[in-house]
């Protein structure tokens, strides 16, 4: 990896998401964020790599673990922090919280906290794009656990049948909450499963954002060429606990040894090492300032009026 405009762009995204997630984790014990948070620390490179090959009109679908995707696709930071604070200035008017980020402007479909539910929704978005003849790729990010829900299999079949412009991105972090893959899958080769439904699948086993970007680029190009849905299994690792701001290696279900290779390969650190140090510092400072401003915005922004409870039940 070299210090090029490409790597700078990718690094900046990675660093920005990392610093934002760290700030959220730091705020959390203050109880200002009264919403369950599922942080992406350790997994950021997937969102960054994939979103880097997307166009503004493309749409991504994310889950409750959606901060990285939302930010990588260009979701507004102030709107995200204010959303966690439950303020009307939040991207979901403070009604969704951390688990339900959304951005019509940036092309982030509203996130769901019922595992797997957003997978067929993404297919519906892709069907709409196809019916209207739009040049639009839909990306759906989900975890390894989500592939166990029946709707995943149903959606694979439907997407393949209709050759939908849909990119399935499985962030395989090896766990669903505390349950490891081998307690959940008889056959660990998820790509084989997916291919058997008629969807081409590739696997990456790295934190190297450029390798993942290349895989994503090929898949998205195939989709734009009308070849139908593609699947990427991005093997990754969740550094912190499932929900909340802390490490949980003492809990016993996994050891920190398992994480260390990932920490050693951390793309934020590795890219920082090859970048111009002054530029890195400047970038870090810029991001910190942006985060300060967003947190300040969220903290200062007004709270809800009781009447707001009754808004948005039905669309007019």
């Amino acid at each position: 990896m070299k210090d090029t405009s490409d790597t700078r762009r990718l690094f900046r995204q990675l660093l920005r998401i990392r610093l934002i997630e760290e700030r959220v984790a730091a705020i959390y014990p203050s109880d200002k964020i009264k919403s369950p948070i599922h942080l992406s620390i350790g997994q950021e490179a997937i969102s960054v790599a994939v979103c880097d090959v997307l166009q503004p009109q493309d749409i991504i679908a994310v889950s409750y673990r959606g901060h990285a995707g939302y930010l990588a696709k260009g979701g507004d930071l102030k709107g995200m922090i204010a959303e966690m604070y439950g303020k009307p200035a939040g991207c979901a008017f403070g009604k969704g919280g951390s688990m339900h980020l959304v951005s019509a402007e940036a092309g982030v479909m509203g996130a769901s906290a019922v595992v797997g539910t957003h997978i067929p929704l993404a297919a519906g978005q892709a069907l709409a794009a196809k019916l209207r003849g739009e040049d639009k790729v839909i990306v759906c990010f989900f975890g390894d656990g989500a592939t166990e829900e029946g709707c995943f299999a149903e959606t694979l079949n439907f997407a393949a049948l209709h050759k939908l412009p849909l990119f399935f991105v499985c962030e395989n972090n090896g766990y669903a909450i505390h349950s490891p893959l081998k307690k959940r899958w008889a056959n660990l080769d998820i790509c084989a499963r997916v291919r058997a439904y008629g969807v081409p699948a590739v696997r990456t086993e790295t934190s190297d954002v450029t390798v993942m970007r290349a895989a994503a680029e090929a898949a998205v190009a195939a989709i734009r060429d009308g070849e139908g849905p593609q699947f990427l299994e991005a093997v990754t690792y969740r550094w912190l606990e499932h929900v909340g701001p802390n490490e949980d290696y003492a809990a016993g279900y996994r050891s920190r040894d398992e994480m260390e290779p990932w920490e050693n390969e951390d793309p934020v650190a590795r890219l920082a090492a090859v970048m111009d140090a002054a530029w890195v510092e400047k970038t870090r400072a810029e991001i910190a300032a942006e985060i300060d401003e967003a947190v300040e915005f969220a903290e200062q922004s007004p709270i809800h009026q009781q009447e707001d409870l009754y808004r948005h039940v039905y669309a007019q």
Partner: protein
Amino acid sequence: MSMLSEKPAMAGRLLAYVDALSEGVAQEMERDPSVFLFGLDVDDHKAIQGSTRGLVQRFGPNRVFGTPLSEDAMTGVAIGAAMAGMRPIHVHIRMDFLMLCMNQLVNIAAKAHYMFGGAVSVPMVVRCMIGKSWGQGAQHSQGLHSLFMHIPGLKVVAPSNAYDAKGLMAAAIRDNNPVVFVEHRLLYFTDAYVPEESYTVELGKARVTAPGTDITLVGVSNMVMECLRARELLAQVGISAEVVDLVSLQPLDSDTVLASASKTGKLLMVDNAWTMCGASAEVLARVAESEEGAGVRMARMGFAPTTCPMSPELEKVFYPNAATIAAKAHSMLRPGSDWMPDEKAAQLSYQMTFRGPF
């Protein structure tokens, strides 16, 4: 008052409910290219018992298509397409199969507009049919509308006649929210005067279908027909019943019910469903809570509190019918005296022409 006009216009031609459904859809598809219709078997020669007849020929397989047997994901697909600005109509030949779609309907469709603070809306229609007779049995006969009425964010309608079927279909398609559209198999071949041109029936309004002074009979879907027949039977013994068709279940026009019930002083609600936590419980509760409702005597009827049996003898007892409705109303008005109309006379003509199996 804000209820629907007393009678559907006597304009247009006599049209069957089943044809009113497809005409309603066709006119909206003509009008708005974002409308499409899909679901299991919508494009085959049986055409969901005729209710999607001609649509694939007219609008092509991009806008009218069958699906794999994957109701859960297909519901998600409908919702996702709706979020993207399309207006999908997802069709189910039986309401029972919606149980496979509950997660998407309850946890996404109903909540998206709210949970995303208005950033998203879900304009879609879920067509589903209540099955009845010919041994449909436990899993092909349920009226499960109250499950959807319970969830804020969903709308639910249940047309009892061809006029409403067409007009509500147009209104449901144009509505910016998910609408569960409850049809009834036994109504498919009943006729009504239906205008040729497009029109909407407003969601959220009930209709006084037949006037009366002694008791209010409130019906849902096919049970409106049974109530109307019960009204005739009651007239034979000098009782004047007013029949209210709820038409829309959520929003629920309890004002119209209340106005009628506080006038007659007696309310008998007859649902095409179980009563426990059903639409009938809601209607009675609303009347009971109201000022005007104090003093109104109330009762409800619905499916027997059992699973639906296949056996024809038991199926007959499982459902309310004109005779049992009339007898119940009679017992509310004249407590001491036992009366049961002749069962033969009570049978509705449409029931006699219907013949199985599916």
